[in-house]
């Protein structure tokens, strides 16, 4: 049962982490160890995965869904739960179509030996791709249960009603447990569904449209849930890896005997990879500190974040991607009213609360790894390649983990743990420290974005936008512009970079929506009216109108208040649309603005699990706020200097503004994901509010005067 989400995931250029290329694969196979680059990062050949055989590909219904003797249903999915709510949404979808209480649904996720490969949990694809697969399988199973009941009663299936785990006919009633035991049902579950079953229309949803707390919430509040960092195995030891003192530093010498000073610690070295294992993590870390004290390194110069944007400009390469229509260059050259501006977006980190973690266990030549990754099947491939194993000899299990936001598409900790475990012949738990996570994980790409446009009255006559380094997500303007060109140009990134919630969409939308505001000012128009004059998409207009009405934009924008301003922005990505109106308060010079209030309208088709949607939208707003006001990776001398929460400031309770959400429910549209797009409006809306308050344009993220 393959429901892979390709080619979207692989077509997006900012998923850099998936294209990191391995230099010497053959050497791995021959010598049985994995090669690390000078920077200490594993370079894994993930891109090959796009075409490689992945996962359990059985088309049988039972590969997706099982009905147990107790009448409970088990849904199998390769998707992961990292806080975005996939487990709950999948459970609700199954309950809806199976006509079974949610409490009788179990969702088994992301175990490469048990679950289908549903692709990476990324790109807001669970809702439009996996949910339909689960609904379809559940509806098919429902039809089989109905058929089994009809046969038992000798009646037409059309006369059978299913509800709450029972099939009811005029002359009898059966539980799903009874029906699932029938030979015919068992046989049918081993086949692919003969025909597409009828799905429940969104307007008729009774379960999916209701709010549901996370299915395993009880284990979360009691501390019983085992995150990847909490997994233990018999005879397990703890690992720690010797990290280079700076990017691109190569290990020259290290005295492994130094680790003997620490009771129980054992040092491991394999080429440039070195580390310790010990009976507890404190001893393992101290062992590595002892090694570090003796290690010599060949360090190399590395650019500083202070010259970042000049570095990106200087290293911008050919191979641009983009789209064009009309002749923007000609229109710009001859236009009477034109404008241009440049925007900068800093690197930011995902900084999930749970840093990368893995437990690796070798047994009879087979490797099992428990780890927090959004990409279980690709991590299995990476492990198989790294250790010269067949994919079937590797099992990756992903317990619900502590946050990802696009930052855990790779398997660094998994490979390191497996490497240590093989060396010491014991299961090893490896948990990255916060400083390791800040330094060696990948970041959201920095961006340098150039915009130029020509105006004819209230209309945008020509448009040119170039993104250097970050990517193509939401690069295309949602506005009606006859002459336009967009380009994305790769550059040399000083930091390892990759996917992030909304990819480059947040950066591109910051630049575009700031620039649209600049154009509105040039045109002498209310920014709302200017946008509406250039927008025809009815969904975009609907969210813009919904947010601005609720916010009383028409009354508030004309008012001038000292130190306070209002701004708005809209955007679209991954099939959903968003608009936000904000009020900000300016701080003392040098301080970021404070977000006082945000009214955000969002629409992603029919609403599923409203409380889950609300959490995603609120979380997206506040994560976007972090990048707008404070978050910024700084590096110097090959070291990340913002390598701790005391130096990299993510949003806290006190940053919470008044939040007013308008969630539009469009049951007539296809469902789209909601985890990403809500992040993209807050930063430009705030920049525009700063302009409204002060007349000054702040063209960088984080916002700076």
């Amino acid at each position, binding site marked *: 049962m393959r429901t892979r989400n390709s080619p979207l995931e692989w077509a997006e250029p900012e998923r850099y982490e998936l294209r990191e290329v391995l230099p010497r694969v053959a050497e791995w196979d021959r010598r049985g160890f994995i090669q690390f680059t000078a920077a200490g990062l594993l370079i894994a050949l993930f891109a090959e995965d796009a075409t490689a055989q992945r996962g359990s590909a059985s088309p049988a219904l039972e590969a997706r869904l099982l009905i147990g003797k107790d009448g409970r249903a088990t849904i199998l999915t390769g998707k992961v739960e990292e806080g975005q709510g996939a487990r709950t949404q999948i459970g609700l979808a199954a309950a809806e179509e199976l006509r079974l209480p949610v409490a009788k649904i179990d969702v088994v996720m992301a175990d490469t030996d048990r679950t289908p490969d549903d692709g990476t949990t990324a790109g807001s694809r669970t809702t439009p791709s996996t949910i339909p697969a689960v609904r379809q399988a559940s509806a098919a199973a429902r039809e089989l249960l109905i058929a089994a009941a009809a046969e038992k009663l000798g009646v037409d299936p059309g006369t059978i009603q299913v509800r709450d785990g029972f099939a009811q006919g005029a002359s009898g009633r059966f539980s799903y447990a009874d029906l699932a035991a029938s030979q015919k049902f068992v046989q049918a579950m081993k086949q692919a569904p003969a025909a597409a079953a009828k799905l429940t229309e969104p307007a008729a949803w009774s379960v999916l449209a209701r709010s549901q707390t*996370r299915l395993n919430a009880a284990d979360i*509040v*009691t501390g*019983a849930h085992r995150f990847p960092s909490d997994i233990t195995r018999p005879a397990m030891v703890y690992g720690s890896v010797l990290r280079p003192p700076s990017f691109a530093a190569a290990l020259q010498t290290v005295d492994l005997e130094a680790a003997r000073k620490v009771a129980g610690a054992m040092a491991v070295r394999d080429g440039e990879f070195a580390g310790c294992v010990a009976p507890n*993590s*404190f001893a393992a870390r101290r062992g590595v500190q002892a090694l570090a004290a003796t290690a010599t390194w060949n360090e190399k110069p590395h650019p500083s974040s202070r010259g970042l944007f000049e570095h990106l400009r200087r290293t911008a390469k050919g191979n641009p991607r983009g789209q064009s229509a009309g002749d923007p260059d000609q229109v710009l050259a001859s236009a009477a009213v034109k404008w241009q501006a440049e925007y900068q977006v800093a690197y930011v980190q995902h900084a999930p609360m749970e840093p990368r973690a893995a437990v690796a266990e070798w047994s009879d030549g087979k490797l099992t790894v428990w780890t927090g990754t959004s990409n279980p099947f690709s991590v299995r491939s990476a492990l198989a390649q790294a250790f010269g194993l067949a994919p079937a000899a590797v099992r990756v299990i992903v317990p619900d983990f502590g946050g990802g936001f696009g930052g855990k598409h790779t398997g660094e900790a998994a490979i390191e743990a497996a490497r240590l475990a093989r060396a010491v012949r014991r299961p090893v738990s490896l948990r990255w420290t916060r400083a390791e996570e800040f330094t060696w994980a990948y970041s959201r790409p920095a961006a340098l974005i150039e915009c130029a446009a020509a105006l004819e009255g209230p209309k945008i006559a020509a448009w040119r936008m170039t993104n250097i380094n970050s990517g193509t997500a939401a690069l295309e303007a949602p506005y009606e512009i006859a002459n336009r060109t967009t380009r994305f140009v790769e550059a040399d990134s000083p930091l390892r970079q990759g996917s992030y919630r909304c990819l480059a969409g947040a950066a591109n939308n910051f630049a575009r929506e700031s620039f649209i505001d600049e154009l509105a000012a040039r045109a002498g128009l209310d920014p709302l009216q200017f946008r509406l004059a250039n927008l025809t998409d009815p969904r975009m207009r609907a969210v813009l109108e919904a947010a601005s009405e609720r916010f009383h934009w028409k009354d508030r924008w004309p008012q001038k208040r000292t130190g306070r301003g209002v701004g708005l922005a809209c955007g679209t990505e991954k099939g959903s649309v968003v608009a936000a109106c904000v009020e900000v308060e300016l701080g003392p010079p040098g301080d970021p603005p404070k977000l006082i209030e945000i009214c955000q309208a969002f629409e992603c088709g029919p609403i599923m699990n409203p409380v889950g949607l609300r959490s995603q939208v609120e979380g997206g707003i506040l*994560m976007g706020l972090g990048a707008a006001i404070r978050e910024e990776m700084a590096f110097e001398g090959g070291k990340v200097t913002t390598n701790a*929460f005391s130096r990299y400031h993510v949003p*806290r309770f006190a940053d919470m503004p008044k*939040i007013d959400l308008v969630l539009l429910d469009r049951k007539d549209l296809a469902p789209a994901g909601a985890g990403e797009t809500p992040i993209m409006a807050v930063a430009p809306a705030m920049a525009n509010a700063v302009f409204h308050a002060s007349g000054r344009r702040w063209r960088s993220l984080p916002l700076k005067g």
Partner: protein
Amino acid sequence: MPVFQLVVNGMARSVEAEPERPLLDVLREEFGLTGTKYGCGEGQCRACTVLLAGKPAPSCVTTMRMVGARKVTTIEGLAGGGKLHPVQQAFLNEAAMQCGYCTPGMILSASVLLEREPNPSEAAIVKAMNQHLCRCAGYPRIVAAVQAAARLRAMAGLVEVRDANAE
């Protein structure tokens, strides 16, 4: 290595440990109490919160030497008599979690806040909880959960009933 005598969740425990070893590691690795989470190692995120003599403390920067005679309560010790603590119940009712990694620490701190201030205003909750990070930024729902927990406690007769919105 010295031996430390601890009382954890009401149970006497004896453990051999380096004096500088974080309490967090001992709870997780020696006692299997993995509900207490590592988040930063510098007391900045409070995912590692435990109660020491009834007060919230970051166990990642609390060394074994520093614990002394203070009783330790972890998230595993909060529910009593097979019943969830009102704050746990409120987090469930309000769906106040996304990834859930910060949740145990949040719940422990909120339980202490409500002991001290049974009916806290939103501002008081923000002030008391501001040391806790939630990267999913589920802050609005967490505030709602703490307010709901205050109501649950009132209903259970744990505190005098007052108008929750009076402040």
